């Protein structure tokens, strides 16, 4: 087992915002079982802000902690702000990740950004 920070362990043991939103405004999925990690983020958007966010994650301790942290960081932020969340920030908020687990933080930010892009594409299609 890798050496995880206390923050990672806290989010791994008590992950926040688990689940899948009904009729989400945006959905972002990344990863596959071959690489070992999968994340699916769903968001509700109101007045250009992320009003609600939930995720499902198949993956290791780091992947679960990253999903949880990303959901907390994104909640309440404007879409532009949320698009600026980087994997580096996620890793920092988690007080660091072991070197070979850094790719998990990439997945978390990517899945969030995909959900926002999905929402924006839908809005564009409607207009």
């Amino acid at each position, binding site marked *: *087992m890798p050496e995880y920070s206390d923050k990672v362990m806290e989010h*791994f*043991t008590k*992950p926040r915002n*688990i*689940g*899948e939103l009904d009729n989400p405004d945006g959905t972002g*999925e990344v990863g*596959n*079982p*071959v*690489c*070992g*990690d*999968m*994340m*699916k983020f769903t968001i509700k958007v109101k007045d250009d802000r992320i009003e609600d966010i939930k*995720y*499902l*994650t*198949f*993956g*290791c*301790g*780091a*992947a*679960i902690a990253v999903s949880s942290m990303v959901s907390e960081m994104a909640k309440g932020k404007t879409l532009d702000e949320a698009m600026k969340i980087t994997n580096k920030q996620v890793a920092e908020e988690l007080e660091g990740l072991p070197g*070979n*687990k850094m790719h998990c933080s990439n997945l978390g930010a990517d899945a969030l950004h995909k959900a926002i892009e999905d929402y924006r594409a839908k809005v564009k299609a409607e207009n």
Partner: protein
Amino acid sequence: MKKINLDYTAAAPVEKAIIEKMLPLLTEHYGNPSSGHSLGEMPRKALQEARENVGRLIGADAGNIIFTASASEANNLAVKGFAKANMKKGKHIITSPVEHFSILNQLKTLKKEGFSITELPVDEYGLVHPRDLADAITGETILVTIQAANQEIGTIQPLAELVAVAKESNVVFHTDAAAAVGWIPVDVQKLGIDMLSLAGDQFYGPKGTGALFVKRGVRLTPLVEGGTQEKGLRAGTENVALIAGLGEAARIAAVQLEERAKEAAFFRDKLKESLFSAIPYLHLNGHPEKRVPRNLNISVSFVEGEALLMRLDMAGISVSSGSSCTSQALKSSHVLSAIGVPPELAQGSLQLTAGPGSSVEDIPYITEQLAEVTNILRSMSPLYHQFMKEAKQNA
């Protein structure tokens, strides 16, 4: 919190009787076995006694046992040492895809050096079929190296049949028996095996101990050159105390083999029964019967192994997993992949190994904990949600 070890392949405690054999060889009998004077006498005797005990465990003459520091080293001496010494006879080596990395990785190196390597197919249980071996042998084949039992899924190979096929073509047969010795009867003479590797820590000896049985007449090139220790096949002053520990572990293992195997299998089977009846969507990896008595390997569908391992660890239960995330190389188990286990199931694999501390009284707790951890992780798994949605639609 009570600690329950289900990862005895990784490590097991060394019992007092073994340590008591080792200690005097570091203190009052600290001498060098190569010395001509009397200080060398006790260490020399200790080495001989250990050689006899290890030989007896596998049906070999003491004189044909070479001590090493691990089964990995024994595997390297056997394969690389044999390839180098016999390359004039041919450069083809046959193996299986489920071997330990200490076999597979050196064969990659030998391939770069001009050897050709054939990996025989294995079936869904990890078994190599003797007919495939017969088909693969050519005039260039010098060595077959196939394990006695698998280190992860416990599957026991049909060694006698495989050796018989190799003998028909006069090809030398090496087996990595690290997962088998001490747990199932292995007799090199009865089986006709030319070389066999074993690891002391796999039958409760100290870590850092191993041995290679080399039949008389099989020529090897040493990996470590220097003095004449270990028949010139492994130079360097012998680690007398550890070797004595290995010897004592081998002596005890030979006496207790049947009893240990029976107890481990009893616990393993009860555990399997309990887990499979309490938790839906589990899969057994490896052969249902032809497996090492202490080994259970299962896949928990829809969840990932490291997350399982961490949560079980918090409940005091130690297990290992073949998931990518638990390996430093971030690759899931090559064994599970070779036997055709789909990636998502390989990620959720757990290896549970019985040992001296295993008690059936702990099985309800283990079951309850694995069930709970599985529920938590499935509740957040996109694969599980997808599966349940589809099940609902089909209903």
